[in-house]
Every structure is written in C-alpha cells, then in structure tokens.
C-alpha cells in the first residue's frame, strides 16, 4: 500500500507540473489532430478509403503524438537536474517508473479522448462497432505504448541525441503492438464479434504484461548513476 502511495505522489507531482504549463498536452493534442489532417490530404477521405485507412491513421496519430510526450517526460527532469532529486527521494526506483507510466498514460488518454471524436467528426465517419470494445483496445494499446515507451525514454535520456534516438529505438519494438492494435481496431470498425479479434486482444495483453515486467526488472540499471 505504501508503494502505491509513493507512486501516487510521483503521478500527482508530474500532473501538477504538467497542468500548470500544459506544454506537453497541448502540443500532443495539436500534433495528433495535425497528423489526422495530413492523412486527409494523403488519402482523399471519401467512401471506402476511410474504412480501409482509418484504423491505421488513428494509431499513427496516437503513437506520433505519444512520442512527443514521452520525449519530454525524462528530458524535462534532466534539464533542471530534478531527476537527481527524484532519485534521492527514499522510494524504490521502480516507483519512479510506474509513476511516470501512469502520468504518461493519463496524458495520452486525455489527448486520445479529444482527438478520436474529432477524427470521427472530420471524416464524417460513424462508428459502427462496439464503443466498449474500441475503448478496451485503445486502453491496452496505450498501456503497452507508454510502458515500453517510458522505459526507453528513460534509457534514451542518458544519450546525447535523446529526442532523435527515442523514435528509432521505440518503433521497431512497438511493431507487435501496432499490428495488434490496428488489426483489432479494423475488426471493430467492421462490426466483427469479440471472439474474432480475441486473439489480438490476448496479444496486446501479453505484450503489455511483458513490457511492464521487463522494465520493472531492468529500470534500476537505467537510472543508476
């Protein structure tokens, strides 16, 4: 229980810092809508094209804007040497990791909650499938993204060109997650029954578990001085 309270404190600190400036969340929001708009120019959004490309557009918009947020989550701490302060606090290093994961998750969820309806409006696309299933997939996809993303952001914060490096090291690792998320989103848009994409849901869940547990084991090494 005390461990959870410590995590909660870190989340609270990060969210307060974020919502005072709204620097990250506004940039992510604008960027994800911008990606959607760019895709509208890339694929003329009429008729069948929308159905074919929309799951991909949604996830590309989410991941690209997510990268912006991830990049800041440790680089910001480095700039003012607050990471050292954070590491000096009497908490387990993994509490810092989970705290950052939850913060990034909340910030991404807020971005998604705003850009997804905008996507449906701008493309004049009515969601045919189950909204609950879609939320489940977005939850699992976002969780996997932030769990490995936060970890690799911490890793790349140790390097010279961290903001360039993060997408390069993160995207290959994200491949299974992207496939699973896009495939199951497409199936939901096609009004498929849950049983048909249950396999993908399992894949996403397994990915999430693996990339929450492995960073949990390795995080001590990433933050050591």
């Amino acid at each position, binding site marked *: 229980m005390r461990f959870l309270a410590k995590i909660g404190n870190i989340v609270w600190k990060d969210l307060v810092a974020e919502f005072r400036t709204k620097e990250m969340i506004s940039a992510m929001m604008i960027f994800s809508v911008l990606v959607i708009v760019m895709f509208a120019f890339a694929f003329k959004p009429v008729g069948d094209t929308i159905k074919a490309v929309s799951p991909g557009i949604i996830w590309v918009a989410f991941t690209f804007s997510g990268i912006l947020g991830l990049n800041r989550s440790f680089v910001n701490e480095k700039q003012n040497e607050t990471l050292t302060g954070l590491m000096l606090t009497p908490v387990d290093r993994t509490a810092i990791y989970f705290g950052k994961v939850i913060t990034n998750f909340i910030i991404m969820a807020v971005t998604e909650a705003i850009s997804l309806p905008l996507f449906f409006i701008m493309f004049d696309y009515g969601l045919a499938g189950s909204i609950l299933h879609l939320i489940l997939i977005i939850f699992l996809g976002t969780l996997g993204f932030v769990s490995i993303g936060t*970890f*690799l952001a911490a890793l790349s914060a*140790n390097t010279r060109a961290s903001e360039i490096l993060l997408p390069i*090291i993160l995207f*290959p690792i994200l491949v299974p997650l992207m496939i699973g998320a896009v495939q199951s989103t497409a199936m939901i848009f096609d009004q498929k029954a849950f049983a048909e994409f249950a396999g993908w849901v399992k894949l996403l869940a397994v990915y999430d578990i693996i990339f929450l547990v492995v960073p949990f084991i*390795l995080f001590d090494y990433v933050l050591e001085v």
Partner: protein
Amino acid sequence: MLKPSKTQTLLGWVTFIVTMFALYMTFIYAPMEKVMGVVQKIFYFHVASAWNAFFAFFIVFVASIAYLLNKNEKWDTIAKVSAEIGVVFTTIVLVTGPIWGHAAWGRWWTWEPRLTTTLILWFIYLAYVLVRASSIEGEKKATMAAVFGIIGFIDVPIVFFAIRWWGSLAHPEVVTGSGGGLDPRMLHALITSVIAFTCIYFYLLTQGILIERTEARVKSIKNQLRERNN
C-alpha cells in the same frame, strides 16, 4: 594492433579451410536445382547468414545479461562486437533474400513473416548500434546498451508471432518439405555452409574483440602521455 594469440591464428586458418570446403560443396558437389538453376546457390549463403545473425543476437542477449550481473567489461565488448556482426549478416540476409525471391517467386519482396521479422530484427539491432553510438562514454553506455540488448531480443519472438497472424504468405519451405525438394547433397552443402559461417562468426568475434582491446590500450597510452605532459 595487439598481436593475435596462437588459437586465434589457428581459428583463422580453420575458418579459411572450412570456408573453401563450403564453397566447393556449394558450387561443385551440390547438384544444380532443376527449376531455379544457379540462383538457388544463394540459398546456402542466405540460410547460413540468417543462422549466423540469429546466433549473434542470441550472444548479444546472453552477454548483456552477463554484463548487468557482474559488470565485467569483457561481456560488454562481446555484446558490442556480436551485435555489429549480427547486423552485417542480417544485411546479407536482406540483400540475398530479394535476389533469390525475385528468381523464385518473381517478386523482390513479400510481407511474409520471416522476411518481415528479419527486417524488424535489422531495425532493432541498428537501434542497438545507435544507442551505443550516441551514449555517453563508459560504464553507463555499456549498461544502456545491455538493457536495450535484452529488450530487443525479448521483442523478436513477439514480433514474429504478431506478423505471422497478421498475414501468412508463402516463404519457400525448402527444408521442412516432406520428402519433396531437397537433395541429400544439397543438405550436406547447406550443413557445411552453416558450419563455415559459424567459424567466420567466431573469427570475426575474436578479431573484433582484439580491435576493441587495442582501442582501449591506445586510449590508456594517450592518457598516460597526457598526464606526463601536464
């Protein structure tokens, strides 16, 4: 450069002889494939390189764990050199694959699980090399690389299964074909080729380690000189 040890020189000669023998097996001993003709010879290099690449990345994984456990620089050097060799062999696989594929199925590339996984594998280990290249020197760099070496290797099987579900297109099943296809002489050639490539891997590994050690030695000499001049 530091002098190679006796075993290393011996390994070099063994590698040379085995490789020559593998070339003989590939081009003279193994029969010509009826349909594909001479293009099929690429098979022996393609498969052997693929095996070598996976083996090299497995060594990176093991060496990374060993480094994190006991912080011995030796493991870091092995991981570094092995990753570089692995990237080179993956590149060979990705180059020979389309050449063969174009002759066999008339297409340069298909989004087939093994091809796609190899491509992602290549990206993962390029990323590994970049983590090393852009990290701050010293122990921290080694730790970051080791951590990424473990993450990357764990990801590979998940990538493979995800891509397999995503779309299963045909990859020429040469070895598993029940009774069909592979001449025993071709199999002999393939085995020799794999052994030869494994020898090449170990030879390159020892050479790479030697270069790393030479570099470290040069650096320490430079530091000594600098201190003396101050």
